[in-house]
């Protein structure tokens, strides 16, 4: 349907442009594009807006971060698509995807069988998210996930730290007390300092930034409790889109561009699977 309308529009505009003088720049753009093989298909990407350094808004309100940079590179390799970005909140992105308002979800989403029932996940991951336990600096009693038994840990809903700990609790008789919260960083750090919660889950990069911002207050302990790969999320029927982007990601991994972006923006090469 769209293609038929497009060719009608293009023919009509061609005729118009021949007879009219002083065309608007829009018309001349469309005329120019008819010289290409096909106009790029617009793909709307739902990208996060409050998760530094992955996806956030800079001072001028423009989208910035790792997700954005990677997708820009992917777009360069796939000229048949034109990526447009819609920043939104984590949960809203998924609702938008289902409602066809966006075509791809990019917010460090992680996959599991439950989620794969409804959504299509990419085949190639583009980051590895290494979750660690974060506690008050100087604390020595917690060294690993088993030490969290009987302790209180803060998690945020929808996140993989919640999922990981919930899974652990299922196998261990709900040993860890989970506190769900949408608290911002300052509140979380304060809670840990006060002793209200014993730990929260984070990645090294964010913990380093927390320490830089607030003073040396948090440390990560023990081995990572989970290390999962992040993928882009698509609708179940968009298999072609997924294949194309997977291909592009493979290329970026092979030529080292992905690693470089990872090192530049998130401080280390997190692009290979652990």
């Amino acid at each position, binding site marked *: 349907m769209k293609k038929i309308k497009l060719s009608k529009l293009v023919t009509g505009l061609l005729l118009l442009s021949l007879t009219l003088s002083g065309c608007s720049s829009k018309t001349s753009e469309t005329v120019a594009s008819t010289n290409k093989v096909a106009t790029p298909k617009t793909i709307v990407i739902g990208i996060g807006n409050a998760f530094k350094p992955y996806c956030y808004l800079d001072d001028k309100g423009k989208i910035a971060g790792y997700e954005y940079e990677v997708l820009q590179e992917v777009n360069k390799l796939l000229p048949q698509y034109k990526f447009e970005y819609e920043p939104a909140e984590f*949960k809203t992105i*998924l*609702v938008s995807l*289902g*409602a*066809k308002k966006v075509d791809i979800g990019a917010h460090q*989403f992680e996959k*599991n069988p*439950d*989620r794969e*029932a*409804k*959504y299509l996940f990419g085949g190639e991951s583009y980051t590895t998210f290494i979750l660690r336990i974060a506690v008050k600096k100087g604390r020595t009693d917690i060294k690993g996930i088993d030490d969290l038994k009987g302790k209180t840990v*803060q998690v945020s*809903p*929808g*996140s993989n730290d*919640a*999922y990981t700990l*919930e899974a652990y609790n299922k196998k261990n008789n709900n040993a860890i007390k989970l*506190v*769900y*919260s*949408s*608290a*911002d960083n300052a*509140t979380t750090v*304060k*809670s840990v300092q*006060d*002793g*209200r919660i014993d730990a929260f889950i984070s990645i090294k990069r964010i913990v380093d930034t927390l320490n830089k911002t607030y003073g040396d207050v948090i440390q990560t302990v023990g081995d990572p409790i989970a290390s999962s790969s992040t993928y882009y999320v698509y609708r179940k029927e968009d298999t072609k889109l997924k294949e194309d982007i997977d291909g592009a990601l493979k290329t970026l991994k092979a030529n080292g561009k992905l690693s470089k972006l990872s090192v530049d923006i998130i401080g280390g090469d997190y692009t290979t699977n652990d």
Partner: protein
Amino acid sequence: MEFDFNFMIVALKAAIKFTPVSLVLAFVPLVIGIILGTFVAITRVYKVKVLCKLSQIYVVIIKGIPVSLILLIMYFGLIQGFDVIAELFHWTIRSKDIDLIYVAIIGLSIYAIATISEIIRGGLMSVDEGQYEASYSVGMSKTQTLSRIILPQIFPVVVPMLCSSLIGLFKGSSVAFLISVTDVMNGALITATGNYLFLEAYVAAAIVYWVICIIFERVSYILEKHLKQYGKGVAL
């Protein structure tokens, strides 16, 4: 788009489980708001010397700042202050042992006092001055006038707005999640952690909210009808 009804039921159950939390976070601030809000409104309408200005400042400031900020200030400030006092008096409990729901209740109450006082103030101003004059002329004191003549007359006016306030507080209780208090909305959303089915969770929460709000509206309507018998009928 497909909609997973089965999961929505799961989310619904979780949402219902947290309904008491939301109800507490709505009713307690409402009651505190009515009691103290009436007091604040009276000081403003009667222009009681010092209290009038203080009340005005209180209402304007609290109405203006976001509720989330009130809660955050409560959390940081109160906790800090509490610990200091606890050290001073050698209490054994520390702030970390206080259930955060109390902090949320205090924060929401502070907000409720400000907004409800505006409702009461509007009601007080609607009563004809003749009522005040008449009751003074038969020798009633200010307190008697207020309690026996004026306040009963503002009920029919004030009840619908209090219903709106209650609904606002009930839905707004979700802001308490900022300080880790889980309410209906977030209780539902938490269940979608594993499967990312957030839409179903939102819908489940919406159902719970709507059903409870319909109950509130029914009760409010019955109250309105019952209290109208004090009035002479309405302008339309």
